[in-house]
């Protein structure tokens, strides 16, 4: 294992432990950086230690003492000096696995505290738990670097100045607070999943990071069924990553994807987790979405997709998380299952209500249904409407192909 790999995998854990020991985000971050610098200096010479993690925590703690000593000299703060002597007295120990895990759980809940703005929760989580650099995060979210850096600085300052505690919430609040954590993880995943422009490689990595966080949450909170369901959902979606775009970067729709490119092991794991979560009684949005994803994943060919079940699940999802987008998906599932005309009626109703104005997928879905029904002219019109609304190059090219296809059918 290289030091870079260890940094990626362990820096979050080590940071979490140091935050607990030092009670200070910035000090802990500095200490982690200095510990890894020390590793880069010493390990090539002396060989990798038997327990790199313990070495790094120890080094981090020592570096922190140095930093405090330097600060204390210049600022003569009583608190710092007191903390210094407390640290010096701590017996050097090998951090236990369970303690490290608790530290990371505390860290996730702190990064996702409701007192922090959502646009700060997501980058802070990525920075501190996943070890992504500020540059990588800025690129992933298409935000200028100084803006992203400022967000992180402000978030850490708020944690310090407003006294946001570093702990796992008490039982009464845990469910509510876990909701935010799961949402943050899901947002990270979606950023990566929907990447079709910008730095695609970095944004794809986001899916990996989100899944790692999902695994961590599931491991640390094995009873939390929605956390299990979220992990399942992400694994199932991610299993299709190599089939979703052609070699030249064009969109490949689900029904046209080469299913041999789907990652079977991930699907297997995702299906198992979905079953367990549902068995545990999970009926929240992640569980329902995972169940839908599972049905898609289980179909060996598009024709074998159980659309009726999917439509029924979307109906349940509508009760859990009512939204016009969910209604749209349900309409499509209904159309695919049996009743294209009914599906169209549902889409027209949505159009009339005006909830999805400006959302290109509504006319695109209409276009698709009309295409399946052989109404070429109407389909062309719908795709043309969608083209007016689309923002993304790959999606635009896809719609242009459809329009050309329809024109061909009409002409031919």
């Amino acid at each position, binding site marked *: 294992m290289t030091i870079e790999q260890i940094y990626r995998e362990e820096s979050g854990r080590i940071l979490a432990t140091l935050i607990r020991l030092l009670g200070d985000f910035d000090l802990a971050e500095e200490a982690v950086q200095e510990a890894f610098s020390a590793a880069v200096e010493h390990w090539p010479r002396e060989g990798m230690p038997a327990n790199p993690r313990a070495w790094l925590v120890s080094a981090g703690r020592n570096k922190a003492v140095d930093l405090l000593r330097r600060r204390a000299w210049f600022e*003569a703060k009583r608190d710092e000096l007191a903390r210094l002597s407390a640290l010096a007295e701590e017996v050097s120990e090998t951090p236990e696995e369970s303690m490290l895990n608790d530290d990371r759980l505390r860290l996730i809940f702190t990064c996702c505290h409701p*007192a922090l703005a959502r646009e700060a929760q997501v980058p802070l989580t990525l920075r501190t738990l996943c070890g992504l650099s500020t540059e990588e995060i800025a690129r992933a979210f298409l935000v200028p670097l100084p803006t992203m850096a400022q967000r992180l600085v402000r978030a850490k300052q708020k944690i310090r100045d407003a*006294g*946001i505690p570093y702990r796992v919430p008490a039982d009464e609040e845990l469910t509510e607070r876990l909701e935010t954590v799961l949402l943050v993880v899901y947002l990270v995943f979606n950023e990566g999943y929907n990447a079709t422009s910008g730095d695609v490689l970095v944004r794809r990595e986001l899916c990996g990071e989100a899944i790692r966080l999902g695994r961590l949450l599931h491991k640390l909170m094995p009873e939390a069924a929605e956390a299990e369901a979220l992990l399942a959902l992400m694994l199932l979606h991610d299993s299709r990553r190599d089939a979703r775009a052609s070699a030249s970067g064009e969109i490949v729709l689900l029904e046209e994807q080469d299913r041999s490119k789907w990652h079977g092991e991930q699907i297997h794991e995702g299906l198992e987790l979905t079953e367990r979560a549902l068995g545990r009684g999970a009926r929240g949005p992640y569980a329902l979405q995972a169940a839908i994803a599972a049905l898609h994943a289980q179909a060996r060919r598009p024709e074998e997709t159980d659309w009726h079940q999917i439509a029924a699940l979307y109906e349940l999802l509508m009760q859990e998380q009512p939204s016009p987008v969910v209604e749209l998906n349900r309409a499509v599932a209904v159309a695919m299952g049996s009743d294209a005309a009914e599906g169209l009626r549902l889409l027209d109703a949505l159009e009339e209500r005006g909830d999805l104005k400006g959302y290109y997928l509504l006319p695109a879905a209409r276009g698709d249904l009309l295409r399946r029904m052989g109404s070429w002219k109407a389909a062309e019109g719908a795709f043309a409407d969608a083209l007016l609304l689309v923002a993304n190059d790959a999606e635009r090219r896809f719609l242009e192909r459809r329009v050309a296809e329809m024109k061909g059918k009409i002409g031919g």
Partner: protein
Amino acid sequence: MQYLLLIYDQESQWGKLSETEQGKMYQEYGDFTQSITKSGHYIGGNQLHPVAKATTVRVRDGKKVITDGPFAETKEQLGGYYMVEAKDLDDAVAIASRIPSARFGSIEVRPIVAREGPRP
């Protein structure tokens, strides 16, 4: 850590309450204050006169400018405050959520800047 809990609600709503309802609110406030005093959180607190009684002072170019009313017209007005000692933000938020006005108004939880004690 010390926090100021700033109580904002719509003054106009108070006038709409019956005398009984107003009495009930005062009772709830009294109970609340007593309870956080007992728990050692209470440092201070007061009800404020409505913003119609406020006066705003600004000094510009060495000149004192005095105007009638609050610093700005807002939908909710500052009606009172508590100053509390709490171990962290979650603790302060828990206290704030028990303030009777939290049910229809907003409580702003502001950390107080800690000042250095005398040097050793």
